[in-house]
């Protein structure tokens, strides 16, 4: 079996505002922020709510499920990769990649589930893969 070139994920910038997000990714969960003052969930996570500027924002764990809002396969890259916006069931849309599937099978509206890829420096980066495939793999895993 020949080894395929892997997409290299640049290391994300980690600072005092973003560290809990990336630590949660290392632990295998996706954390979002909600504002206690106005109740709105926002993305990307900030210390200050972008809807009301309250500093009373708290982390919570997202379901990790959503739908493809838009995507594009970068054909000029080696290897090509599928950048996307995914709208989470919590209502916010985030930039990500769609992985573990044939590019030609990706569709807007498709259900996807959280997965992770390692960045160049070992940080877990949240990506998404088709939800049905995840279930199939889980099934195979349970049988073996």
């Amino acid at each position, binding site marked *: 079996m020949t080894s395929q070139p892997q*997409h290299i*994920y*640049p*290391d*994300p*910038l*980690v*600072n005092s*505002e*973003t560290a809990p997000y*990336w630590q949660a990714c290392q632990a295998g969960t996706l954390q979002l922020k909600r504002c206690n003052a106005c109740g*709105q*969930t*926002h*993305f*990307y996570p*900030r210390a200050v709510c*972008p*809807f009301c500027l309250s500093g009373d924002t708290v982390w919570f764990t997202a379901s990790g499920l959503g739908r493809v*809002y*838009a*995507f*594009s*396969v*970068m*054909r*000029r*890259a080696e290897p090509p*990769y599928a*950048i*996307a*916006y995914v*709208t989470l069931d919590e*209502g*916010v*849309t*985030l*930039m*990500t*990649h769609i992985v573990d599937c044939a590019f030609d099978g990706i569709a*807007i*509206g498709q259900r996807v589930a959280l997965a992770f890829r390692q*960045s160049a420096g070992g940080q877990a*980066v949240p990506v998404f893969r088709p939800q049905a495939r995840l279930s199939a793999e889980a099934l195979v895993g349970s049988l073996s």
Partner: protein
Amino acid sequence: MSRPCKAYIAGAFEHPTRKAVDKTVPQLHAEVALGALRDAGLESCDVDGYFCAGDAPGLGGLSMAEYMGLNLRHIDTTETGGSSYIAHVGHAVDAIAAGRCSVALITLAGRPRAEGMSSVGARDYGRGAPDVAFEQPYSPLITNLYAMAAQRHMHEHGTTSEQLAAIKVAASHHAQHNERAMLREVVTVEDVVNSPLVADPLHRLDCCVVSDGGGALVLVSPEKAREIGPRCVKVLGQGTAIKHLSAGRVDLTHTGAVTSGPLAFADARLIPADIDYVSIYDSFTITVLMTLEDLGFCAKGQGGRFVSDGNLISGVGRLPFNTDGGGLCNNHPGNRGGMTKVIEAVRQLRGEAHPRVQVRDCTLALAHGTGGSIGTRMGSATVILGRNDA
């Protein structure tokens, strides 16, 4: 009929270079400044207001004012990417109307081509930007961000690659007459859709060129415009806006033109049907299509039909656009196309466009700029211009 106007464009100049190997960026700024001032019959000592954006090196306006020896009483370094220079036109009008300056100079220059910048490479906006951590790990490029907007527009409105291609076809029909255009070959819809996919669904020919060069504008008060003469062009209306990812409420099928356009039309007391010629920012074909919809030249979702069948070709269609070939074929200096959009609109209103693309009796024109990316955060700026006797 003489429409009221608070300031005029008296000088406009596009740098002839497309690859500036042996020139510095400050030098290019100074060369376009000189060109626009000569076009207006003015000298650098007449300039008392200066406008520039993120392409100006060093401390921007401070560095460039010193380099060019300008003595100023007004400066504005508003940075909204490639839309900056159209925003500057509006700001210059306001500054002149408020008496803060009487001769306003706007400059743009860049040399990404000589510096070897890839048309598909990532832009570095600095690691301090708060969005970087949540986007940069996914390698967002200018191309795949605009491509996602195109994909979503196709999904919501049924827009096709062939319809997007019609925009490039129109630009190429104009560029064949521009001896300085980088791409002068007339292309067909088939040529565009058969060119290699860069980022689905955008093909190579859906993308603008990368070029060096720049441009400059000189705006003056109505009093000075009367002295300078009838080549002065009226600024009748202006509007600016920004649009971003709205904390995760992402909408990729609208641009900031939905705000800047109506502001400019209200300011000018005009409607889209009044406009004879448009210069529309054309980083990609999808940029043009969405902008035309958002400015009100057609209903949302009808852009694909609107641009088809040569409707953007001068002398053929109902709304001639980018008669210099635009960013898709002519040039896109410094990866910032706002300046050249205004310059071609000025040529049209002066009757100085190439005879083969000159719009007959061109009286009212619109120029629109998009800065940043319609796939993330963008600046939008619209100006409506009128012939001297408009």
